[in-house]
């Protein structure tokens, strides 16, 4: 058995689904945040797979790999800002659970 594009896409789809399910079901903001990162990394995995399997003139398609770099950087920036906000919230409310974030009516 050789690994084909479909295998990678399947794993990436699974990662995306796990991430999305985590965002919907988990109650701890830090874990929700980790699940969000998982979704971005699912996209990264499939981008790299597409780049590797759809050769352009015998070389991988580097457009996708550059896009992956940018996604990693943006995710890091998002994490930095996100953790700062979560730490600020924790200092104000002593909680990281979404049920406790209810001072604004939904």
């Amino acid at each position, binding site marked *: 058995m050789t690994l084909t594009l479909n295998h990678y896409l399947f794993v990436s789809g699974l990662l995306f689904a796990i991430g999305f399910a985590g965002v919907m079901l988990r109650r701890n903001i830090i874990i929700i945040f980790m699940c969000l990162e998982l979704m*971005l990394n699912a*996209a990264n995995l*499939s*981008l790299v797979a597409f780049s590797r399997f759809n050769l352009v003139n015998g070389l991988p398609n580097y*457009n*996708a790999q550059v896009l992956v770099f940018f996604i990693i950087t943006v995710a890091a920036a998002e994490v930095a800002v996100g953790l700062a906000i*979560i730490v600020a919230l924790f200092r104000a409310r002593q909680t990281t659970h979404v049920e406790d974030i209810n001072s*604004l009516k939904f």
Partner: protein
Amino acid sequence: MIPSLSLEITVLLLGILMLLVESFSRSDDKRGLAKMAIGILSALVGFSFFVDPASGNAFYAVDATAHFFKVLALLTTIVVLIMSLEYSSVLAKYLPGVTPGAGLGEFYSLPVFTCAGLMFMASAVDFLLIFVSLELVTISFYILVAYMRRHTASLEAGVKYLILGALSTGFLVYGITWIFGLTGETNLAAIQHALATKAVATTPLLFGLMLLLTGLGFKVAAVPFQLWVPDVYQGAPTPITAFLSVGSKAAGFVVLLRVLQPFLGVPGVGVKVLAVLALMAALTMLYGNLAALPQDNFKRLLAYSSIGHAGYLLVAVASVSDTKATFGSAGVAVAFYLAGYLLMTLLSFLVLIVVARHSRGDDILHFNGLAKRSPFLAFAMLTAMLSLAGVPFTAGFYGKLLVFAAAVQAGKFWLVGIGILTVAAGFYYYLRIVAAMYWQEPGDTTPITIAPLTRTAIGALTLAVFVFGICPQPILRQLKDGGVSAVQENAGKPPQSADGLRPWGV
């Protein structure tokens, strides 16, 4: 003639300069920073008319659409900075700091960075640049929404916006991934070329597009992705709420217009995407306008109303047709509606900030008897509300007219029907504010003082709402001649260049 990119670079340098001045200055009064930014951004609005039309490249388009949305971004940022000056006393209360001005400098410089992101987005024609500029805007907004660290509502709004914004980014990126996988390109023109020349499987393409629409649906607050809007709008600092409702929406729609263009001509895909958009438009109009009816908090009311307006804009996006007339063109309708929406929304938030500062609250009852306390503010708010409701001779009326004309042109009569019903609902809640201002007795009768800069901005916006409503022809002619309508109408045609990689030269 100046290269177009120099506008964005100037804005970025301005932001960096403001951060450096903020970190080195010993002064507590940071208002000079904001005033400097307002001056430079105003100058850039002028400079933007002298842009070299040939200075684009494969990532970065220089066309009428880009110019139009750049001017919108600059004007919005200027008004937001004026609002921030007015709001700084409230802000200072909720910021921990050893000195009185601590943290205010960043509050003035972050909107400048957001503005740079919005301007890049107006020109972005490659998924790479679209993604990075969209994130520049979104991440700055995360910080700005959660800016008042001693105010629980602001922090909670920040966390909600953060999680749902990051979720929408995930969907957007995954959608981009699938479209890249099918076409092998990230450039929109190259994607269009690839779709026209290669056979591409329809189902995965639709899957990718739906993911993309989900991501963008969050940004423009379309039903069913609108859940974050009321809480975030209510909790965020008021100038940022205004920025979110105008800037974020304009950016979402310009990206939507650009991104959809390559796919509309693909058989079996374009029709389905437009059908989904039409359904979203109908639901968004209904939800926004009906949920606004029972609101008592003014910011929350404007949040629901902004969802409603996203619905009208989606009607225009869903009504692409191949007409060459100004009247009935979807691109012109979106651009004009957004411009009008910007004017009236910024006007109502500007008045709200002044009133809220004097009445210590932003509920509708705080507007009671405003006509007696300040006829000027009451008239400005009256203008904004009439325009938001869509009364003739205001910008809002003409915008809705163009949107519905586009829908009729595309044969979507049911959307027009729902639209007219929801406009009627809108009259009720917008006129509640007017009734409170003119027919209720004021709670306290102290006259309201307005800073000269704010007074000028309110006056200019009020005037502009009427100018857009009474004689819109010159503006429409600009949009038409500039080719804003061409954004959508050459959908399906192959790009100009043969290799499809560098359609804008360079």
